[in-house]
């Protein structure tokens, strides 16, 4: 008989959300990728290994914490240049980064001076990384049944087949 689905309570799901629109996120994306790298990678690793969102709520809340801190730091230090950058991006339908290079350079300079963050080079964010966690690897995340035994090794002497290969016309 099937049991009951274990859904977490609303209390556990209450996390401080990043209350920000899409152009803002895209504008800050590159710096966000290099700054909040650790929390992001841990969350994605957890999600991919456990294959269950209920087990990764803690890492998810850490991701949110990191994001909220990130935006707070930007707002505290480089608010005007950031506002100009994301309003420029927001002007077009698909926010194309190449139309706003001037504002991007200003924002990058401001962030580099005040916070010491460097914009990652092209291709840095898509590199494959190894993540070190204290969480142990889950065994059997798919909860599969026990697998069948492998075939026993062949004991007898193997002879070459009598009339040549029977699979002459087929090669699979």
């Amino acid at each position, binding site marked *: 008989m*099937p*049991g*009951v*689905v274990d*859904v*977490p*309570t*609303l209390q556990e*799901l209450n*996390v401080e*959300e*990043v209350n920000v629109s899409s152009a803002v*996120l*895209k504008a800050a*994306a*590159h710096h*966000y*990728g*290099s700054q909040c790298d650790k*929390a*992001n*990678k841990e*969350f*994605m690793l957890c*999600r991919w290994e456990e*294959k*269950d*969102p*209920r087990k*990764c*709520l803690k*890492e*998810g809340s850490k*991701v*949110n914490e990191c*994001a909220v801190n990130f935006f707070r730091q930007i707002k505290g230090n480089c608010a005007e240049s950031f506002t100009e950058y994301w309003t420029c991006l927001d002007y077009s339908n698909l926010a*194309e*980064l*190449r139309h706003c290079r001037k504002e991007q350079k200003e924002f990058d300079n401001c962030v580099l001076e005040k916070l010491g963050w460097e914009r990652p080079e*092209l*291709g*840095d*964010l*898509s590199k494959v990384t190894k993540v070190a966690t204290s969480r142990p690897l889950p065994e059997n*995340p*798919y*909860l599969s049944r026990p697998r069948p035994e492998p075939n026993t090794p062949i004991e007898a002497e193997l002879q070459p087949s009598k009339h040549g290969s029977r699979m002459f016309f087929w090669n699979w």
Partner: protein
Amino acid sequence: MFGVGVGLMVFGYWRLFRWNRERRRLHIEELEARISLLPLLQAEHDRRTLRMLRENLEEEAVIMKDVPGWKLGEKVFHTDRWVSPLTEELFNLRPREEMLRKKFGFLRYV
């Protein structure tokens, strides 16, 4: 004459290849923006589905209060692993527009 034409064409091709490489670099930049934002979006989406499941469970408790033999929050499958809920299942008790928006909101073709 012919040489001039061929020369112009070759020059055009060279410019085209250079611009295509530049476009590829710009496209990679935009994809990287999406890559770096993925954990945030995934976490928010997870929280949203879990929140909707929880609200549905509480609604179910209220609605099926007087039905005899109804097991609350019963699984549809026999397994213990996490099964991603269907959009119909999540948006069951909400207006139809929300479900349609979730299903077809990003779709521009028919």
